[in-house]
């Protein structure tokens, strides 16, 4: 745990998570005083999952310099994979119970038919698509949560990095990948119920007697634990030599390549790792959300993820967490209609309508005036300042000597 010394934020973040989980548990309906409603606990749990995705985004963008606009696709894919098991197993329970009431004990074929018509009746399919072949088994489907997004990231990343697609081109390409996936899932014959998506995911199979009050707290703990572990893992990844290499790739890819490092290998590893973390975050998120549909894969969702990281401060892990938590909680507060409307001279400022405008403009302001985001505030508190290089550059390239420096 030597690397922990170089990352003082690690202890702070994990301690904060522990305290936060404890406080929430004490105040919850399931295990405490009931000050916080179950739906709010779910919102908090979901926010922790979003923070986890943002953490992965920070690693891939803030550290490795790959602005991926496809990580929410991996997030949703993870959700779909776990959702398949949740929906299948839950439907199997219901169908078995219903058939047992019919007089004869059910045959496997009858159960299968019952499940198929329950799940796929809405899209008019009468056969279980082959991609549901593993849906009966929790361990296999959990394996798919990791494998499917991981393999997609591997294929896409290998193709893209091998062709040396970088910068905004890569962003556009990842965005196209997300759109392609979303459009594919929107079809009824994609095997994942088209735009109906998967629903009823909040009910865990085998736990129908457990109340949502308790379930929400369990998922909250799991999300907090996942976030803490991922923070630990990513801190470790970025603290050693590996971290130095990926930061170097971010700053000057060609130079790292000329130094003999396999730039593509490093990028690919980071891309796959973050895709898998996002998928796990999604697998924790959607059981709390209860429903997933292809709209979750909209390209804008992934841009929002990047924006959270930018607002929180990229290149610092705690920044991603702060950004995601701050913006998504603020968003749900404003769009939930709980923010008070502001009466103005020419009418009322209704936040449900105008929050999006405020959010958009604040992206612009943060990008222009606070490139370090909220994380920059912590730098100021710690007394860290970048050198102020006044004057115009003397050469045509970025980072050339500037007038004042040359005078010294």
């Amino acid at each position: 745990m030597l690397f922990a010394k170089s990352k003082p934020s690690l202890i702070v973040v994990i301690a904060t998570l522990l305290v936060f989980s404890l406080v929430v548990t004490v105040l919850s309906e399931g295990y405490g005083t009931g000050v916080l409603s179950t739906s709010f606990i779910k919102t908090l749990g979901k926010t922790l999952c979003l923070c986890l995705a943002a953490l992965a985004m920070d690693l891939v963008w803030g550290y490795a310099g790959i602005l991926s606009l496809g990580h929410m696709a991996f997030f949703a894919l993870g959700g779909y994979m776990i959702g398949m098991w949740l929906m299948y197993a839950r439907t199997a329970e219901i169908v078995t119970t219903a058939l047992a009431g019919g007089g004869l004990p059910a045959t496997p074929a009858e159960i299968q038919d019952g499940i198929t018509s329950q799940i796929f009746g809405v899209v008019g399919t009468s056969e279980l698509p082959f991609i549901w072949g593993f849906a009966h088994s929790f361990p296999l489907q959990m394996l798919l949560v990791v494998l499917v997004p991981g393999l997609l990231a591997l294929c896409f990343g290998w193709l893209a990095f091998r062709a040396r697609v970088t910068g905004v081109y890569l962003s556009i390409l990842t965005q196209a990948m997300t759109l392609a996936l979303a459009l594919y899932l929107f079809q009824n014959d994609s095997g994942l119920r088209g735009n109906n998506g998967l629903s009823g995911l909040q009910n865990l199979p085998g736990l129908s007697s457990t109340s949502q009050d308790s379930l929400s707290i369990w998922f909250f703990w799991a999300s907090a634990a996942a976030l803490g572990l991922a923070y630990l893992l990513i801190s470790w990844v970025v603290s050693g030599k590996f971290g130095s290499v990926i930061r170097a790739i971010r700053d000057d890819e060609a130079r790292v390549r000329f130094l003999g490092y396999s730039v593509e290998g490093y990028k690919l590893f980071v891309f796959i790792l973050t895709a898998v973390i996002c998928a796990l975050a999604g697998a924790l998120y959607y059981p709390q959300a209860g429903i997933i549909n292809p709209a979750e894969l909209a390209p804008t969702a992934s841009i929002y993820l990047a924006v959270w990281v930018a607002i929180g401060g990229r290149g610092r892990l705690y920044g991603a967490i702060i950004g995601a938590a701050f913006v998504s909680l603020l968003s749900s507060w404003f769009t939930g209609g709980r923010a008070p409307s502001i009466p103005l001279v020419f009418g009322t400022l209704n936040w449900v309508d105008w929050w999006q405008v405020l959010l958009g403009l604040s992206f612009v302001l943060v990008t222009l005036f606070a490139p370090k985001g909220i994380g920059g505030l912590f730098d100021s508190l710690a007394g860290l300042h970048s050198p102020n290089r006044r004057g115009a550059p003397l050469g045509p390239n970025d980072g050339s000597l500037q007038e004042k420096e040359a005078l010294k």
Partner: protein
Amino acid sequence: MRVLPFVLAVLAWMFFGAFATVQADTAQSVLTTNTALVERASRQTIAPVIAALVESGDEMVPAILEAWADKRLGLRKADGVYLLIRAEGDNYATRSLDGQDLGLAPKSDITELKPNAGVRGLIATALVQFNLSSKDTAKRVAALDSIATDPNADALTPLRASIENEPDTALKDRKQRLERLLTLRFDPDSAARVAAIESFGTDTQLDLRAALNPLLSTKRVAVEGAAPEGANIANTLKIDEDITSNQAYGQLVDASLVPARLTVADQRAALLANLKDGVVGGLPLAKLNTQSARDRAYTALETQGLARVAATENEIAATLAKYQFFDIYDERDPAVTDAARDALRAIDQNVGLMRAADLGLDGLSLASIYFLAAIGLAITFGVMGVINMAHGEFITIGAYTGYVVQQWISDYTISILVALPLAFAITFGLGVAMERLVIRFLYKRPLETLLATFGISIALQQILKNIFGTQARPLTSPAWLDGAWMLNDVVSISYIRVAIFVLALLFLGVFLWIIKRTRLGLEVRAVTQNPTMAASMGINPDRINMLTFGIGSGIAGIAGVAIGLFAKVTSELGSDYIVQSFMTVVVGGVGNIWGALAGATMIGGLQKTIEWLNPSNTLAAQTYMILFIILFIQFRPRGIIALKGRAAGD
């Protein structure tokens, strides 16, 4: 002696036929002369009377024939005179056969003629012939139309008879075509039918296909043993290749050759009905949780006679093995079906070529839409390297400008002409403002431009939503853009798409002219290639960047007006096109207007081709297209038209 009635009949026919042609000059006299035949009209005997009526030249003959078929021809009992009648209570309103009104007459005075179906058929045929040779062109056209909509064998002879004396050339052509269409279906002579089929060559019109298709209609039969004698077999069906065993068995069930298959639900019901003390068919209830156990229990019930006998899988297989399944043509003549099949195949090939041409037009029009949407982006992203996520919202603003202008100017032509420059002006202004306030600070941080412009994009989208609401607003095109340009049955393109194609070409021309022939274009190219050097030559890079960005945004506004004419104008209009626009620029090659053109052509053509291969599904087509583009980038990372040398930058 058996010959005698026949001889008499022939004599009678000759007598009446000769009599009718020579002496009869009015319908009344024809009918009166043949009154014995008319009163007890039958299909065998009435033909000469009808022929005589037709040849009499009486102008009232069509009306009389129609009345006869409708049971509106009566015979006055008193003097045997024929009248046109119409029932009115207990009376008939009567008219003489030359049309004069004769007032009411009691029903008892008049015998109503009731021709049977066979006679009515003959009358109808005579009427067709009559109309086909009518002096009134409209009547001839109507008769042809009725034959064309309801082709039947009876129409063939009168149609042939009417061709020779047809004065109108166009109508004569039509009659000849119709005659061939009828011949190929109804002529008794097989060689004539084959000749008629072959005479059409690779004609692709719908009426020919409609005439040929019924010749090839088949029905499916199951036969025990060898194929039926003399049947014109289209296909011998193999089970599991051409039909599933389920379908084959269903065929046998439909023909009542075998008992219906036992469904799971029936079996379940039968088992439940015979459940006694937790045991059914000798098996305890709890064991019935597999299909094989249920089958055993059911077989036990069958042997006890408690359930109906139903086939098991093995028995079904054995039954199917005994039968052969054929598709048999309803048309019995193999020469005709062969000729029809060959003709249809040739037609299908021809239609396929036409479809390909139509597809090409579709692809071209989609390409011009993508080009319009992407050309502004090709300037801002391609030339300046600035990624503008708010480009889609500029398109939306253009479309809304068109909508607002239409609220003020009701003439659609003028309003479009006003909206185009106005949309350009508004989005140009917005683009310049955006460049001055935001983008110029981020030229060295392109990834952050993406985020900042995304912020502007969602803010603009929400503002538009707040102003115009979420429902689609109409942007109506002028009347002269309605409708479509029909080349033939298969190939057509709507005028709006033609207009968009023309607009895209116009933009291409204007843009090329600005870049290659004007001072501004020269300066833009200079700043793009090397801003520092351009600045040392006295060009103000800030001003050029501002103008370039403004022009790119302005073109997005004009594209918005064009796109709004056929798409739904909502605040999300532009964002539907943004990813495709970026793809267009990236695929085509950055920094080059020809690249955008090539990219748009490729993406538009590709999308239409994939849609054609998988016609039910546009979503899948877009998915596959994007996948193809991702792969394409592997092989040409710099796009179709890549800049070379220093201009390529990094």
